[in-house]
């Protein structure tokens, strides 16, 4: 019997079409363009899941710097004091504290300042 790939091919094409939904112009209509776009987008997605972790850390540091400067401390001085104080809060939870509970963060700053 002759083996035909009709159904499988159609299914894989549909899968690609579904993933290309919402793209602009030929990127959602043309078979070859879809394939290129999707391969590229998956590569970006893989890379940027890792980049995201660096970007978030940068954001926390920006926020912490702002919160510290309000109390007359630079970020670098703050981290120096934090290490010396033995507090084990990380940058993420510290920035969340500064975001939602400025009063609690000020308390943390007092501890940090005391150990400088």
């Amino acid at each position, binding site marked *: 019997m002759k083996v035909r790939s009709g159904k499988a091919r159609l299914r894989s094409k549909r899968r690609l079409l579904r993933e290309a939904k919402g793209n602009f112009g030929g990127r959602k209509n043309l078979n070859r363009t879809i394939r290129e776009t999707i391969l590229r987008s998956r590569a970006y997605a893989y890379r940027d899941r890792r980049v995201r972790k660096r970007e978030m850390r940068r954001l*926390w540091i920006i926020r912490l710097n*702002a919160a510290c400067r309000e109390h007359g401390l630079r970020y670098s001085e703050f981290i120096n004091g934090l290490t010396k104080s033995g507090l084990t809060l990380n940058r993420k939870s510290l920035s969340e504290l500064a975001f939602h509970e400025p009063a609690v963060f000020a308390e943390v700053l007092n501890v940090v300042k005391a150990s400088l």
Partner: protein
Amino acid sequence: MAVDIAQRTSVAKNETFEPQWYHIDGEGQIVGRFASALAMVLMGKHKATYTAHVNTGDFVVVTNVDKVRFTGAEMAHDSHPNFTTKMANKTYEHYTGYPSGRRITTGSAMLEKHPEKILQEAVRRMLPKNKLAKSMLMRLKLHVGSEHPHQSQNPQPLPEHLLTRCK
């Protein structure tokens, strides 16, 4: 004290964000240093709620913008107390979009025609080059002379710790 810390990093929302109003006298401030301090406030980077995709900046009212100065050797000028060589040599360029549409304005001409543009241009170039920049710049209110029409917003004096780079 019980504090609820979520797993996700919080972001500021346009709907709930309430900008502050600040006021500062621009007299005698050095343009570049002053502009960088203003840009920080306009971008919202002075607050723990900074979020890159939301305009979390505050309003800043600057009076006496015509009296900002540049560094450099002092020069005599009939309308400006601290006119310097740098101001005289400075040029502002823009392109009209028509062929050979390059226009050049000197610092002293800018001071006479649009004194507030000197500081505005300096700040604008320090803001991020994105779609939020426009709305950030709109929160900067520049006024020639010591009067301003924003009394009903009750602007507070700009806190000292935001001006450390102007020293």
